[in-house]
């Protein structure tokens, strides 16, 4: 360790492992966005909250900045370290620390994978209901820092809803115990909620206590072929009344073609412009009959043209693969991603406007739409044509994102539904949040992180 700053760090946080190999710097210095060249100073792998505090105090003294890092599945560049930062990764703080059957809570280290939390909950006959395709690699710390959503928000809400308590090290090195698993706690500002969604800019989550839910009842999954955009929300309106929905997702024919090319089984003989994946409680015959009613009503109205239904959990999983496989099937095209939201009721008007914009601005690009439409959340992926270089591609996309941000402003939506602002959406924050709001956010950051060492350059 030639850098004297690192030698000092090794002395002050003796239990922390430090990595400086180029391959480690690259591995830990980037997330799923591949736009920035990783260039961190070093990687620190602490094993205790005390170490994390020591790291922050060290960083303040040496004026080194910190990038907290979870599973690096983030899609907004929040965990990118490209300017000599110290990456603090929580790989070694990944244990289940406790389970309380009366509270129905699980206490975990921030580095634990989402899927490991789901499995631990299942071991106790309960469920951790936040869920999405990156479950095997993303971490609870990252989920909390981005207030991750996913495919079951419609039923269970976002990560925020499941956080019962947090241990948090601020940008000054203070260790806070926020809310401590209390259901009721009317004792002033709830700082826990300030931390959730703060994208590592205020400090680091070093422990989380999560609420668990009763396990879901047996469910079934339907895949519906929808002929037109304006029918999507009509189908949703019927489905949410007739069924207890667990998920309501959509994707386009373009998305399906990519997933099929990636090896999935085709659900229908003919392509349809839009598809809906709906999962619903099907514990009894009444709810299965309701699903059929719903389908019949939509078929008669012309809002769906065809549909299949899972007859086993294995089939449910293969229908889900059509939706969940999209992100991976697009990865090779280095897509430019938009993750936007509007009020659910505003989706049709917004989609119509956006359709016009995309047709006008991207006449030649392959644009793939999918997302959590039941939450008003759309993912718009623009694929890079092979012949175009990355820089001019991104430059062209950013022009369109400006228009998109303006359109979102008009419809009262958000430029980031669930992926966070990070680096990727930073230029467009003002379309979604007012000057006054942003000024307040800066003020809050200045209190918790007066030296500006926590994930600088992210969010604003």
């Amino acid at each position, binding site marked *: 360790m030639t850098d004297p700053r690192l030698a000092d760090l090794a002395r002050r946080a003796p239990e922390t492992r430090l990595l400086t190999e180029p391959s480690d710097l690259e591995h830990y210095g980037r997330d799923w966005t591949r736009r920035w060249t990783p260039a961190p100073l070093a990687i620190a792998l602490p094993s205790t909250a005390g170490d994390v505090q020591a790291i922050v105090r060290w960083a303040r003294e040496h004026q080194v900045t910190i990038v907290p890092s979870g599973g690096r599945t983030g899609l907004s560049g929040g965990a990118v370290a490209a300017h000599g930062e110290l990456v603090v990764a929580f790989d070694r703080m990944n244990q289940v620390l406790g389970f309380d059957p009366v509270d129905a809570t699980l206490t975990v280290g921030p580095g634990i994978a989402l899927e490991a939390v789901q499995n631990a909950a299942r071991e106790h006959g309960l469920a951790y209901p936040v869920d999405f395709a990156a479950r095997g690699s993303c971490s609870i710390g990252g989920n909390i820092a981005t207030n991750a959503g996913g495919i079951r928000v419609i039923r269970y809400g976002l990560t925020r809803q499941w956080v019962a308590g947090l241990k948090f090290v601020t940008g000054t090195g203070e260790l806070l115990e926020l809310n401590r698993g209390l259901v009721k706690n009317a004792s002033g500002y709830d700082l826990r909620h300030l931390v959730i969604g703060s994208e590592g800019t205020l400090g680091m989550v070093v422990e989380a206590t999560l609420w668990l839910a009763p396990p879901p009842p047996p469910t079934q999954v339907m895949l519906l072929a929808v002929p037109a955009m304006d029918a999507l929300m009509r189908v949703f309106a019927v489905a949410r009344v007739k069924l207890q929905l667990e998920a309501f997702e959509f994707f386009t024919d373009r998305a399906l073609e990519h997933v099929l090319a990636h090896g999935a*089984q085709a*659900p229908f003989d003919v392509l349809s412009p839009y598809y809906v994946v709906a999962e619903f409680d099907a*514990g009894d015959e009444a709810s299965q009959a309701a699903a*059929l009613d719903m389908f019949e009503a939509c078929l008669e109205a012309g809002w769906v043209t065809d549909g299949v239904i*899972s007859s*086993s*959990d294995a089939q449910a999983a293969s229908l889900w693969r059509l939706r969940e496989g999209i992100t991976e099937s697009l990865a090779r095209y280095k897509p430019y991603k938009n993750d936007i939201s509007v009020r659910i009721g505003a989706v049709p008007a917004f989609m119509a406007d956006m359709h016009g914009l995309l047709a006008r601005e991207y006449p030649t690009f392959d644009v793939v739409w999918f997302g959590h439409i039941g939450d008003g959340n759309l993912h718009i992926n623009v694929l890079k044509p092979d012949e175009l270089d990355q820089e001019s591609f991104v430059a062209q996309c950013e022009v369109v994102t400006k228009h998109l941000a303006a359109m979102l402003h008009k419809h009262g939506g958000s430029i980031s539904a669930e992926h966070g602002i990070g680096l990727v959406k930073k230029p467009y924050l003002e379309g979604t949040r007012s000057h006054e709001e942003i000024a307040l956010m800066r003020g809050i950051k200045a209190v918790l992180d007066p030296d500006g060492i926590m994930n600088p350059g992210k969010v604003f």
Partner: protein
Amino acid sequence: MKILVGYKRVVDYNVRVQVKADGTGVVTEGVKLSANPFDDIALEEALRLREKGVAEEVVIVGIGPADLTAHLRNGLAMGANRAIHVTTTEAVQPLTAARVLLKLVEKESPGLVIVGKQAIDDDANQTGQMLAALWDRPQATFAGKVEIADGKATVAREVDAGMETLDVDLPAVITTDLRLNEPRFIKLPDIMKAKSKPIDVIELGSLGVDTGDHLKITHYAAPPKRSKGVMVKDAAELVAALKHKGLL
């Protein structure tokens, strides 16, 4: 040709099965029930044979309580022409199932019976073989590939050493293995159409088969929990630990 397909309902493959506290069985309330996966494969194969023009009619058979109807409707929606529901409130053991199927075979005179190689609830792997013996017709078990021509079925079987190919004269019994095919999704419009497909209901008692308990189940228990691994510091400690267990 007519094909008869065994179509059993079981606890879904993905459910973590729990033994009842009193050891009298496994918990099925509030638990996802699905077609036995091997039976879905059997039905899929029968439907493909019908689509190829080898068969004209596919009949599924379920043995179980009144609420089995919804399960049979799924099979009809998948494409079976009709269903036979043999009603009973008792648990059905393989020999009873084989005897029931034999009665139906005598009634329906199918050219082929396809059943799963086993049902994933009791994993008995007996019904198809017993039916073939009682019926005194050839059997081809663990089918990975089936072709029908000239009154014969050519069946590639999954055996330990690879694949074994058998020619059997029809009528015969085929039992399906996992890789035979991938069952289709049920189309929602077909569920609507399936509402008007016939389900013959026959009381098991009326078939005159011996349903006496051939096997007595004394109790159910969960497999013993695997004890946690022990960490050893070095090779010497490992050797000592193995010696202590009498393994060295």
